[in-house]
């Protein structure tokens, strides 16, 4: 089993996109190093205790003709020894732990940090960039090498924000604003999901944090701050009509259009996202059609109703939503 564990930690993060053992930020690395330290202490204690136990198991089993053994009431020195030894190990664990707490559990000291508001909702994530005027859902872009300062709120029940390769968890508590920060150190797409049970679709409340080169981030930020452009293609324009004429607008906003619903994810730049329905499906036209046709099958329990749409309407909507880049 230990061998299996070593195998896992040797594998690259790509095979385990949600692994806590493949950190890619200062905060996650700090925790991982602390975990490694505790882990090896635990392995040491494990080997000693189980080793002695197996020795006793074999060595002192009763053999025929054995007399009753000598009765021993106790041994003061031994008791002191096996009280002190664990205590010392715990001190060795406690010191780095407490140091790490006072780094991780505090607000970031970095004044240049990028502030992102995270609002947990059943069962998706809203990301707001107050300094950049961006509202998006389920996928946050951040630049590599710059501290990200998350402000976490909940719109309904308890959730927990967790991108294992970037940071430990922080709960989203109704009525309270929590903070979490990390400085990503390599470009990539990082998987995460809600880690506090929040109801029916808790398992499908996924998200991505995309760490970009600073230039790419700038480009993304400029594009996403802008309102949606009017689609050029005829089919997409027809899709826009379907969108505006149906229940879609009562929940979804597309900035630059009359659609201003606040209940569901902002779709202004939906076409540029990697996934649909908070990480459930890859964002392809076929998957989008499937999602529009049977939301309750793809993500049971989610609040989006299954609107009656013809195949043609779905095709047009897919074209429209895909054009929102």
């Amino acid at each position, binding site marked *: 089993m230990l061998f299996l564990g070593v195998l896992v930690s040797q594998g690259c993060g790509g095979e385990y996109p949600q692994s806590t053992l493949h950190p890619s930020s200062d905060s996650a690395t700090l925790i991982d190093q602390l975990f490694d330290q505790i882990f090896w202490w635990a392995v040491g204690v494990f080997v000693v205790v189980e080793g002695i136990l197996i020795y006793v198991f074999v060595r002192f089993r009763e053999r025929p003709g054995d007399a009753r053994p000598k009765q021993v009431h106790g041994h003061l020195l*031994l008791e002191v020894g096996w009280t002190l030894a664990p205590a010392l190990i715990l001190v060795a664990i406690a010191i780095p732990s407490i140091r790490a*707490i006072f780094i991780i559990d505090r607000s970031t000291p970095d004044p240049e940090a990028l502030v992102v508001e995270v609002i947990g909702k059943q069962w998706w994530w809203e990301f707001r960039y107050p300094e950049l005027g961006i509202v998006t859902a389920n996928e946050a872009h951040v630049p590599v090498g710059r501290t990200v300062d998350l402000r976490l709120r909940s719109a309904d029940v308890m959730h927990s924000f967790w991108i294992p390769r970037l940071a430990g968890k922080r709960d989203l508590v109704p009525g309270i604003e929590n903070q979490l920060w990390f400085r990503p150190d390599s470009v990539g797409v990082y998987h995460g999901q809600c880690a506090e049970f929040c109801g029916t679709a808790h398992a499908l409340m996924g998200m991505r944090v995309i760490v970009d080169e600073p230039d790419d981030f700038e480009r993304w930020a400029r594009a996403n701050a802008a309102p949606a452009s009017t689609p050029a293609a005829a089919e997409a324009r027809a899709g826009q009509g379907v969108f505006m004429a149906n229940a879609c607008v009562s929940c979804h906003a597309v900035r630059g259009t009359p659609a201003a619903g606040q209940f569901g994810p902002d779709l202004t730049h939906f076409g540029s996202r990697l996934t649909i329905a908070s990480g459930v499906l890859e964002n392809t036209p076929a998957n989008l059609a499937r999602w529009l046709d049977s939301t309750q099958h793809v993500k049971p329990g989610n609040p989006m109703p299954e609107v009656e749409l013809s195949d043609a309407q779905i095709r047009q909507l897919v074209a429209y939503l895909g054009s929102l880049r």
Partner: protein
Amino acid sequence: MAMTDGYSTGIRSWLTTVDHKRIAIMYFVVGFVFLLIAGVEGQLIRLQLATPERSFLDPDLYNQLFTMHGTTMVFFAGMPLVVAFFNFVVPLQIGARDVAFPRLNAFSFWVFLFGGLFLYASVPLRVMPDGGWFAYMPLTNPEYSPGPGIDFYVLALLISGVGSIAGGLNFLVTILNMRAPGMTFMRMPLFTWMALIVSALILLAFPPFTVGLIFMLFDRRFGTHFFDAAAGADPVLWQHLFWVFGHPEVYILILPAFGIVSDVIPTFSRKILFGYPVVVFSGVLIAFLGFGVWVHHMFSVGLGPVVNAVFGGATMLIAIPTGIKIFNWIATMWGGRLRFRTAMLFAVGLVATFTIGGLSGVMHSSPPADLQQTDTYFVVAHFHYVLIGGTVFGLFCGFYYWFPKATGRMLHEGLGKAHFWLSFIALNVTFFPMHFSGLLGMPRRTYTYAEGLGLDVFNLISTVGAFIFTLSFVPLVWNLWRTWRRGEAAGHNPWDASTLEWTMASPPPHYNFAEIPAVDRRDPLWHPYIEPESRAEGDEPGGAVPRRQPDEPPAPVVMPNPSYWPLVLAVGMLLMTIGGLGSLGLTLFGLLVTAVGLFAWAFEPAFGEEAH
């Protein structure tokens, strides 16, 4: 399992019994049935998670199943099985004829039973609670959990909690007041010691939880705002109330198991317990520290660095007394003559696997490390090692140890060993891989997981392990069946053990002790073996013999009367509980029945005529 010695055996005798041994058997049978039910729920959970993106269970049913699995295991399997052992063993170990309040004892059982039946009434009605055994607000308020599911959870735990508190009080008083002459605290067997500590824990831990449940009930039914952030309250309050109970609850479940192995290991090593006072006080210390660590369930809530540092440190401290116990058990075996009967295998199995659970516990005592581990399968692995490797193995250990005493029959050793090895293998195959699935990013309470996260292999292994677990119950049930039909007679003391319960016939007579023994040492039945030089000063040979002059007649035996009123009282409370779902009339009627039961109970004579 005939227990006919001096008993009437009709159904009425069971409904009115106040005999601790019969109540123990009822607790055990009901707790065991709930263990099997919750086990099936766990097996279904594992079937759903065998491969990624399966649709064997829909998400709502899955959420209901893990809620019922956890709630049942803790409150309706773990606790009653623990209390079954308290009931059977404690009066016998301290030289008493019953508990301090025999009718209260019967009442505790009936409300526990009704609580469990009430909870499971939600199954045929298809409204099982689905908020997890921890029922976090605000998910469990009516806005997010409409329908009666959560009410079943709240009301079932309220009524069974009454029984738990009454039981805790009963055993606390029993152990303080009913000990035989000479049975000083430091002569009590370790199991009785842990029962004493756990009784105090129950008395202190259940009230905050009860308060929380009442708040929740009021929020749900009467529109109060105890946990409503929109009204200015803090939903985190529920987490505090839950975990200030929930963490001591862990020790309520584990310390009795520690007590059992502390009696079993010496018996099958033929050596007295190494470091008796240290083992006792480490138990006291665990219980004491257990009230100061609840925030380690809440490190990710964001309570700030100082709070997290303090509770992290306090949590680490618990590893010290726990380690002391493990070392003392090993030292007891060291130099002994180990007889590996089934009970001993479970005891050693506990030491081996609890150690793993303890070490993973130290890993998340460190708050920063816990931020990655909390609410993942790493924690699921941890507490199943603790609750199966610790509590369940400890309870099975006690089951194989005291079964001959309770029934007068010997279980089959080969089948017992098959049971042990299957469950030992199953535990490790099921739960060890969960350490990896957790560290690789699998959160708890998720009905499915995506392909491509690298979690597939670990989950499949876990599911295979769960099947082995189910299989492990076959030799156990077969063993019970076989022993029922043709078990060998057990005799007074089949294991050559050292404590008072082994002085009487198996099964024990109705009155336990024809004469109350006087105790002048620890391990009284071993006094011929404990060499003179190792004997404590002032310790005269003697053991456990009644204290009277040879020509003096034995004191008369006075036993408590059977009574219907505990059952009536419990039925009244059940009616109130059902009324809590929305019928004021039924609640008032239940109140009336409760009041009648209470008065009749109060004016009924508790003790019968002399019977010998």
